[in-house]
């Protein structure tokens, strides 16, 4: 009930296109939908037939003809049981179309994520997309299941009633037709109106439910600052404001409920009156009048129901808009296919005169360097100077503006991005741990069984903390490893990478957000990795950088220097300054 997002208007044509696409998601299961609707219609016919029999027998009674109540009784029972039988038959078609369509959409989400390699420009939008994927898609059930079914029912049932009425009492049919457009008109009108009201009251439309949790979660902080009472008062006030403005809105929105009921019963009453007039003038039989009265409501009820469904469809359209906007974004990724293969053993990466600009801003300037297997090659500099951009260039996620990147002697511009991906492993604190056991996470990159893995860990003296956990290597790590300490989490990420045995590793700020002790442990993992691979180590922490074999230092002017750390320390004053400042700062930790 609580609106959180300001509703934006979706254009008419866009809305139509969206609904069409949604409907197409059902694919071959459209058959199930129509079958279910057809069987529903059969049930409906049995009901209409029963009404007909009732009207007939009453008329015969009135005319004082002989009637057989026994036969009447059994006819109706057979109709009723037949209807129930049809319903049992229709049972297996319930919801299948909706399931199929929703699964379809979820699979496509998965594929699009895959094509994006899970990388998105804005971090905030990822959370949003995840919510759409995990919850939003399922809200479309109201469209696929309820709305489509009920609109089919409306078509079938109303057309049937209309045909019957047109036969027995044409004027009644005309009145029905006149009433028909009043219902959708009311909905459109009401929606326009409530959008206006919403805008008017927008300031008070906050999400009180979230405010409730947010304030209470921070209650202890509010207490320590002695503002708990003030916040309680303000919460109560806001909740009341929200309630009042919601009621104000409902005052209008609910009018459509009353209005539709009004139209329905006015239609029944007015057409009934004319039926009676016809009867009084001998143009309509009693049986027809009774039959007419019994089925009149059957004409309006489904229309009213789909009227109720219309605001749901509005919400569905909005959701569909978000879903397709995301799914369509994948088309922008180019799909060029390259045929050249990379050599198995890569011993060297060479950056030749490499530059990169973004929006005319030069980010990386003419970098020339050879990175060799068996060494730790550090990229150092303060944050924001393009260290991670360089990592992306090596992974071929970005294309250099100038210069080239060679793996051995091959220019990666001529190699398919997937080939590059198979060679390079990018490791950072943002790497993800899956919500399973430590073991399951480690086996992502290796085929070692549990015993082999444990032996390997012992031999290399890695993940020592695992032995202290009650469940050892089978301990569950929680979503993205949140049940572990940051240090433990990052150690597992490193061990997992090591197990994958790639030719090239990029460790991006892997020693950050941990204390100095863990920092060194993690650096040991990186040293171990470098024994058998090309390792690029990106960091702003100079204590580790000077332990590297070679360093590429980027200064504030984006100029770069390459060399052994000790030599750079002597020749580049900015580098030296950085090392000294950090040492001085960290002195407080070693008093």
């Amino acid at each position, binding site marked *: 009930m609580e609106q959180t997002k300001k509703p934006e208007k979706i254009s008419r044509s866009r809305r139509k296109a969206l609904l069409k696409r949604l409907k197409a998601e059902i694919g071959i299961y459209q058959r199930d939908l129509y079958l279910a609707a057809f069987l529903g219609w059969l049930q409906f016919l049995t*009901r209409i037939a029963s009404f007909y029999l009732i009207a007939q027998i*009453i008329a015969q009674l*009135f005319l004082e003809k002989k*009637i057989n*109540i026994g036969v009447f009784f059994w006819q*109706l029972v057979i*109709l*009723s049981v037949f209807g*129930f039988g049809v*319903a*049992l038959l229709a049972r297996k078609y*319930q919801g*299948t179309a909706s*399931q199929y369509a929703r*699964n379809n959409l979820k699979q496509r989400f*998965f594929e699009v994520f895959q094509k994006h*390699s*899970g990388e998105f420009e804005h971090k905030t939008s990822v959370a949003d997309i995840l919510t759409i*994927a995990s919850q939003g898609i399922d809200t479309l059930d109201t469209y696929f*299941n309820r709305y489509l079914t009920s609109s089919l029912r409306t078509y079938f049932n109303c057309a049937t009633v209309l045909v019957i009425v047109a036969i027995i009492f044409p004027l009644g049919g005309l009145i029905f037709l006149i009433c028909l457009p009043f219902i959708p008109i009311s909905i459109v009108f009401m929606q326009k109106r409530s959008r206006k009201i919403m805008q008017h009251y927008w300031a008070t439309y906050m999400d*009180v439910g979230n405010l*409730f949790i947010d304030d*209470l*979660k*921070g*209650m*202890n*902080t509010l207490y*320590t600052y*002695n503002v708990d009472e003030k*916040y*309680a008062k303000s919460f109560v006030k806001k*909740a009341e404001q929200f309630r009042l403005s919601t009621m104000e809105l*409902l005052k209008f929105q*609910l009018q459509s409920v*009353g*209005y539709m*009921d*009004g139209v*329905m*019963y*006015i239609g*029944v*009453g007015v057409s009934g*009156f004319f*039926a009676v*007039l016809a*009867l*009084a003038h001998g143009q309509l039989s009693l049986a027809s009048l*009774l039959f007419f*009265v019994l089925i009149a409501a059957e004409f309006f009820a489904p229309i009213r129901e789909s009227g109720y469904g219309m605001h749901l469809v509005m919400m569905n359209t909005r959701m569909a808009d978000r879903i397709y906007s995301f799914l369509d974004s994948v088309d922008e990724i180019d799909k060029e296919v390259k045929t050249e293969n990379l050599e198995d053993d890569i011993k060297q990466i060479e950056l030749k005169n490499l530059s990169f600009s973004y929006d005319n801003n030069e980010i990386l300037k003419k970098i020339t360097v050879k990175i060799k297997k068996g060494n730790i090659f550090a990229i150092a500099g303060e944050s924001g100077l393009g260290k991670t951009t360089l990592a992306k260039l090596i992974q071929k996620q970005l294309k250099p503006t100038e210069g080239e990147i060679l793996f051995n002697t091959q220019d990666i511009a001529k190699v398919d991005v997937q080939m590059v991906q198979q060679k390079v492993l990018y490791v950072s604190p943002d790497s*993800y741990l*899956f919500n399973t056991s430590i073991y399951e996470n480690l086996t992502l*990159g290796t085929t070692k069984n549990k015993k082999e893995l444990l032996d390997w860990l012992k031999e290399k003296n890695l993940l020592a903390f695992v032995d202290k956990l009650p469940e050892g290597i089978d301990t569950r790590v929680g979503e993205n490893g949140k049940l572990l300490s940051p240090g433990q989490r990052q150690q597992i990420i490193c061990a997992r990478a090591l197990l994958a045995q790639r030719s090239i590793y990029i460790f991006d700020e892997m020693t950050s957000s941990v*204390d100095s002790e863990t*920092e060194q442990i993690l650096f040991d993992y990186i040293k171990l990795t470098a024994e058998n691979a090309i390792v690029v180590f990106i960091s702003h922490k100079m204590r580790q950088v000077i332990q590297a074999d070679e360093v590429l230092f980027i200064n504030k002017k984006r100029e770069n220097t390459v060399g052994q750390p000790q030599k750079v320390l002597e020749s580049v004053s900015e580098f030296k300054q950085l090392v000294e400042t950090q040492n001085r*700062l*960290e*002195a407080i*930790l070693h008093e």
Partner: protein
Amino acid sequence: MNNPAEISTRRLVKRMMGLVKHLKLQIGIAVVFAVLGFLATILIPSIIVDLGFKGLAGKVPQITMLLVLFCLGVLRGLFRYGEHYFGHYVAFKTLANFRKLVFQKLQRLAPAKLDNQDSGSMLKMISEDIEALEVFFAHTIPPILTASSITLILTLYFWNVAPSLAIIGLITYAILAVGLPKVFAAYLQPLLKKQAIARKKYISYFSDSLQGMKELVQFKQTQRYFNLLTTKSKQVNAQEKDVSVAQYLQSAVTFLVIGLALIVFASLTLLGIEHETINLQKGVTAIIIFATSFAPYLELSRLPLGFKRAINAARQVFVLLDEPEFNKDGVAFNESIDELELNKIAFAYPTRKQAIFEDVSATFEKHKIIGLIGPSGSGKSTLMKLIMRWYNVTNGEIKLNKHDLKQYNAKDIQQHIAYIPQIPQIFKQTIRENLTFGNVAITDEQILVAAQKCHIKEKVLATKQGLDTIISSEQKIFSAGELQRLELTRALLKNADCYVFDEPTSNLDSLNEAAFLQVIRDQCKGYVFLISHRPSTVACSDVIYKIVDKKLIRTK
């Protein structure tokens, strides 16, 4: 905590009714409108039948009757509107009411009640419970009352036509409103539970694999995860299907019951007409009324499921509302904190038997940084919470300026202590509000001076709207280290005599850790307690205590 099962369902319902006493009028209006609306719906066909019979007798209906029918249609719309309006009124009023009650209760229970790790999930549960209660009050009570009133009216009416018809009516309504829903609820409940569990698992797996997509691509595991996901989704689909089939069956059986009831009702009426115990017109009207009378009962079809949920929800909420409150009262304390001494104190949490401290004595010196080190769970934070009087010591006494701390008002003590928790607490409001909590006496200039001391001023001013930028716990503007500095700015603005830092560095790297400690050393005057499990964090303290075996040992 009380055992939630202890409150009996009957008492619960009674208490719940007590809470909506002041809404009696609105509930009553909603019900009256619903009943009137229903009467309009049966009156319209009855009038037409009546006019029909008169027409057969040669009386052409007057045009005024058209007006009457038209007005009845309009009234039906108005009644329906009224019913919904007041129904929603009750719903939103109860929602606001319950939130208010719970909010205020938690405010009184703070800080002790919210002082544990799973308080977040407790809050989530309680807010879901409140929503369940809203559903109960808005969508359960009025429909039940409406159905009851209508039953009374219809039974009287049918009885007047023929007692047997009244009995058939009563039986049918009972089956529709009570029998079938109960049977199907018993059948549906386990299915729904199973479905919810399967769905939750699937969703978490789905979102896990999307979040870890970069890793899946890097390790070439996408196909395997995709297949697993498909298998899981098939399982969920099967469960979902079971539920929707069951629900469909319920509606099919309901229709069957209605059909059969109508047959019996019509046949009995016809028999009566044939034997001339029932007047033809009256009988026909009765049949038509019966045929159009089921809607209010069908609204009750999902009631048993909702009722159970509401009762459980009410139980949780009342247990919370009944929880005894810690007495924070005491003599006013408005001196500054100058002396702090532990005198043979002992402590155990009220809910746990195990003691945290036994016979601990120590004297803390002002103007020194006091480090407290020990593994997590050893009681470092607990000791601080005893000094802030979130809890009372079980034995011995804490001496504050030579007097027993217990005698002072807890809130007064807290006024003098700034507490900086491990995870910065950010509220969804402007940076200014987050730092001052609406204290207008603090000027922007003062805020910026404090922010500068914490080396965060530039970053704050660099945000889009400066101090007016709205931030929240999910924000991405500030890093963990920067949030910690905002929290410190907030604390400095409090002008406290005593600062308590509870694991302030556990999410920081060593550079940020060092920078943060530097600020503490330069800016915090008076008592400074520094709690950490990291030796590097407490290294800069003047005095260091280690917690070993429920005792405090001075190591520096």
